[in-house]
């Protein structure tokens, strides 16, 4: 038995086509937002129900409405703390991308460097930040520099690994072809290896971005900061110490949003930098 079909009425008057196109685009945008918003609503609802049931005290788990009102009441304070943290994240990740990429290129060109540097780079990821934090503060004081160093240390690695792999993945036949076209080593790099590695490098940058925000939190936790607005990580630790849990949650929510915003900003950058690598129908912010 066939289901009754909706008869589409002919609305195809030419003057309405532009409006129809805009309407279609809006509907598509609304549909792509529907799933993430629905999931968010379900998670928030479950959280609210669990918190209201009262099994965990508000010091341990504040309800979403408490977090929301804390965010609203402390908006200026949290925004003031967001500024240094966002600066650390953006600058730190930018430095990490440059360092990771530059190291990858050096390693790609020199086997000696690869053997010397790669194990140390891997080992650096096991280094507890608390061990080197006092030295960083001793060198660079209470400002932003020691925090940047921590973020760079945490974030350069994914870029390094993915870029090294990407640079090495070019086909040998491709390099042979370039040689018969008289390409120098540098030209083979510039025309083939570098663009071929770009999508992998951007994947590394995505991972770096996602861990960069937690890197900023670790950096702020492990170093000392002077000034009224010491950063969201610092604020979270201070709030938790005095049982201001809702405000700590509000600040954590802002970090959460910051990571998502950074991630999708990079997706947009990828489309401009390496459009050949962007899959059709890939993530849309």
């Amino acid at each position, binding site marked *: 038995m066939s289901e009754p079909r909706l008869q589409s009425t002919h609305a195809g008057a030419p003057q309405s086509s532009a409006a129809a196109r805009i309407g279609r685009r809006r509907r598509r945008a609304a549909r792509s937002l529907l799933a993430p918003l629905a999931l968010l609503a379900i998670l928030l609802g479950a959280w609210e129900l669990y918190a209201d049931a009262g099994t965990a005290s508000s010091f341990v788990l504040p309800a979403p409405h408490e977090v929301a009102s804390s965010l609203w009441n402390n908006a200026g304070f949290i925004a003031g703390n967001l500024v240094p943290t966002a600066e650390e994240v953006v600058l730190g990740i930018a430095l990490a991308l440059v360092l990771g990429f530059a190291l990858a290129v050096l390693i790609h060109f020199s086997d000696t460097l690869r053997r010397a540097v790669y194990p140390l780079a891997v080992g650096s990821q096991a280094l507890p930040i608390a061990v080197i934090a006092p030295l960083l503060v001793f060198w660079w004081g209470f400002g932003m520099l020691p925090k940047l160093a921590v973020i760079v240390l945490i974030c350069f690695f994914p870029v390094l690994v993915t870029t090294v792999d990407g640079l090495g993945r070019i*086909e040998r036949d491709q390099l042979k072809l370039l*040689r018969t076209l008289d390409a*120098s080593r540098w*030209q083979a790099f510039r025309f083939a290896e570098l663009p071929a590695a770009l999508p992998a490098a951007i994947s590394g940058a995505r991972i770096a971005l996602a861990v960069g925000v937690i890197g900023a939190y670790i950096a702020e936790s492990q170093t000392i900061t002077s000034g009224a607005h010491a950063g969201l990580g610092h604020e979270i630790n201070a709030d938790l110490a005095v049982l201001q849990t809702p405000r700590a949650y509000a600040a954590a929510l802002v970090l959460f949003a910051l990571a998502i915003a950074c991630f999708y900003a990079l997706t947009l950058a990828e489309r401009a930098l390496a459009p050949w690598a962007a899959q059709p129908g890939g993530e849309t912010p």
Partner: protein
Amino acid sequence: MPSTITHPPAPPAGGRVGGLAIALRDVAHTFTDRRGSPVPALAGVSLQARHGEVLALVGPSGCGKTTLLELICGLQAPQRGAIECEPAVLMPQRDLLLAWLSAVDNAALALRIAHVPRVRARNRAAALFAQLGLDGFEHSHPAELSGGMRQRVAFARTLLSGKPVLCLDEPFGALDAITRAEMQDWLASALASEPRTVVLVTHDVEEAIVLADRVLVLSPRPGRVVGELAVSAPRPRARTDGAVVALRERALELLARARCNTTGPA
């Protein structure tokens, strides 16, 4: 025996036919496979090609044809024997176009490598596009082109390298039968208007006879030249021409005999 590769001075401009463009004397080469064991690829190959001659090499899969082309292009030095050859450019079986460059930029790659400014390189490549039946696709990216069109872009890239010798390694092997036949006709006319010395490697005997002035038959690995056929039929040649069909039978006979001789006693 010492191995030598020498590049004689380029012939006077005008691309006149005559004189040797390629000369191989008793070239032998062994490569090491992935497991580290030696694989003899060529066992004493001697061949010559005149300027403007289209030389086809046919043989069973794995008869060292690709190694031979890499030696001619100077990608490897022969372990034995001597190669005298004008500068040669390789056109591999797979087009190996760069996905991030437009068709015209892919074709102009050799010019960009030779430090020709971008706009001038593009203009020179675009001028060739009309001739190759690619006009209108200058700014398409490789993923948007059909297999036959990509192969034509790869051929434009090969031509624009400006090298006098073209080494074509099964250039149409990856195409379907209909496209391949079209591309063979197309290559024949392209070479008629733009004569070059060509070494065409193929396992398609018919393709060799339709396109070449001379067909060399290679034995299974390690490759040797076991037969030579001169193709004097007038161009353009159809696959159904009596002369083409007769030559194809002879070439297949030579190939079959070469296979028996090497696999028999071993």
